[in-house]
């Protein structure tokens, strides 16, 4: 058995391994605490937190699709005050095991993003991930992530308010991901993460009705993985800041594809719904691959596709 290191570094923050959950698929970690060992994860990324409580969309909010699912939750969450009160103490405990804590921030306006970021300035949080890519809320969110100029400005505003490194989470619902990745970098982002879900629609032909009350929803799961790998590759080659890859990762190989395409770390989302132990399994499978291929440092694999 060869010794190998899965440690990675993003914006000065060290992660014990490159695997974390995708925001919105893991609550705030607490909900899965009895199903897996949270201290084995590289990081926990929280459910999106806004300034005030958000009630989300009407139901039905979810629908299964082949090798995937659509969701239109609409970022229901209790707001930053309750988050700090109720969720952060638990996350602080997990953090003491070396698992990093990344808070996902959402807002309807630049001011809202900034207010949430400011509330977190003195909190035990390693990084902030700014959601400028949710397809399911009407104001803000995705609008900030689809226009390079707006994205640059919101990134700048977040960066100047933030005490922690900032990850901008990008949407795939754009023509040229490279332009958006560059805009985030130009705005001062410490890292980018992608892809958020791909906007989709499903219709019940018997009832002639939309399956989701919101009509459209975000597609996730293995169905989107090749799209995600392509976009991670394009974005990673467009910028010099680290990339966190996500979209349909369900196996170690899927994660390694992201890493070879240029991702420094990988987030696992919908796979956890199929297998609560998915992230732990993926960490193990990455290790097996490294042993098999005599890779001593996972960083050697980042962007190593040719």
């Amino acid at each position, binding site marked *: 058995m060869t010794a190998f290191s899965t440690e990675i570094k993003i914006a000065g923050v060290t992660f014990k391994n490159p695997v974390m959950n995708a925001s*919105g*698929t*893991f*609550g705030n970690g607490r*909900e*899965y605490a*009895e*199903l897996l060992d949270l201290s084995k994860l590289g990081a926990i990324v929280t*459910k999106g937190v806004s300034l005030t*409580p*958000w*009630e*989300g969309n009407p*139901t*039905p*909010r*979810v*629908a*299964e699709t*082949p*090798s*995937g*699912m659509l*969701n239109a*939750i609409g970022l*229901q*969450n*209790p*707001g930053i005050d*309750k988050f700090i009160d109720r969720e952060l103490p638990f996350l602080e405990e997990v953090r003491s095991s070396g698992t990093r804590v990344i808070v996902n921030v959402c807002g309807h306006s630049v001011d809202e993003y900034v207010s949430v970021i400011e509330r977190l300035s003195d909190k035990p949080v390693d990084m902030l991930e700014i959601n400028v890519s949710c397809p399911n809320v009407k104001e803000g969110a995705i609008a900030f992530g689809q226009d390079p100029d707006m994205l640059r400005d919101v990134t700048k505003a977040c960066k100047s308010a933030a005490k922690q490194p900032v990850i901008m989470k990008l949407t795939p619902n754009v023509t040229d991901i490279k332009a958006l990745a560059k805009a985030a970098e130009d705005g001062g982002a410490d890292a980018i993460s992608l892809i958020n879900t791909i906007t989709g629609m499903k219709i019940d032909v018997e009832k002639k009705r939309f399956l989701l009350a919101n009509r459209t929803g975000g597609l996730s*799961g*293995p169905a989107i993985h090749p799209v995600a790998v392509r976009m991670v590759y394009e974005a990673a080659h467009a910028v010099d800041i680290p990339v966190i890859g996500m979209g349909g990762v369900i196996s170690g190989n899927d994660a390694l594809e992201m890493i070879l395409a240029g991702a420094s770390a990988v987030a696992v989302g*919908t*796979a*956890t*719904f*199929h*297998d*609560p*132990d998915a992230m732990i399994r993926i960490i193990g499978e990455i290790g097996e691959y490294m042993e098999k291929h005599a890779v001593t440092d996972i960083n050697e694999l980042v962007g190593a596709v040719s």
Partner: protein
Amino acid sequence: MSKNVSVAKIIKQSELAEGIYDMVLDTPLSAEAAPGQFVALYCSDSSRLLPRPISICSADAAAGTLRLVYRVVGAGTGEFSKLSAGDSVRVLGVLGNGYPIDEARDKKVLLVGGGLGVPPLLFLAKKLSEAAGSDAAPAAVTAVMGYRNLGLRFLSEDFSAVTNAIDTSDDGSFGFHGTVVDAIKAKDLNFDIAYSCGPLPMLRALASLCADKNIKCYVSLEERMACGVGVCLGCVAKTTGVDAHSLVKNTRICTEGPVFDSRDIEW
């Protein structure tokens, strides 16, 4: 109470009525399961990612078995219906809160089920029947179970074995001709707590009847679910008050429910 994913062997499976299946699993979850709770089964076809929530029809802790009665509604449940003795299935559970059974003590209890809302009430009826003679015993139990027609009648005999049961059918092909709420009114049933599960219009009508009589009514709700454990917020119900989780008026059916006091639901 803990949640986990385990692999359970199927002991037997049969079709009770058209498209309605009765599956018995060998699983230690049987020791933890309470009436009104549910499990979620994973498909073996990995293109179907999400676990299917299915209510628990009964649990025998001594035998280590869990009984699930479900309807085939799509490809996922279709896959489950083809499993037979010796096959295994991945199970997430036990999930949800269950019926507050202790509130039945000394009360005249009415169990109201409709269609696929019938199975979880059988579990409750059994528990109430087992309580007979103890301090926790209800004063009386009556079950009113509604079906579409004779062809879709199931579990009737199981109910008759443990409680005073009234069947209704929408088409009059057996039992009382009409809905369960019609039957409760027509027979002027006297009760002081109701536990129910069934289609939304049935629950709404029952909740309204109970509100008029100022009787406590528990309803078990369903909604399309994804995670089953309270993280995705896919399966929420509108509530009259602010919910504890998100401080809005959308409570999680999988976690705070599926059983709610009908007065807490925005109908």
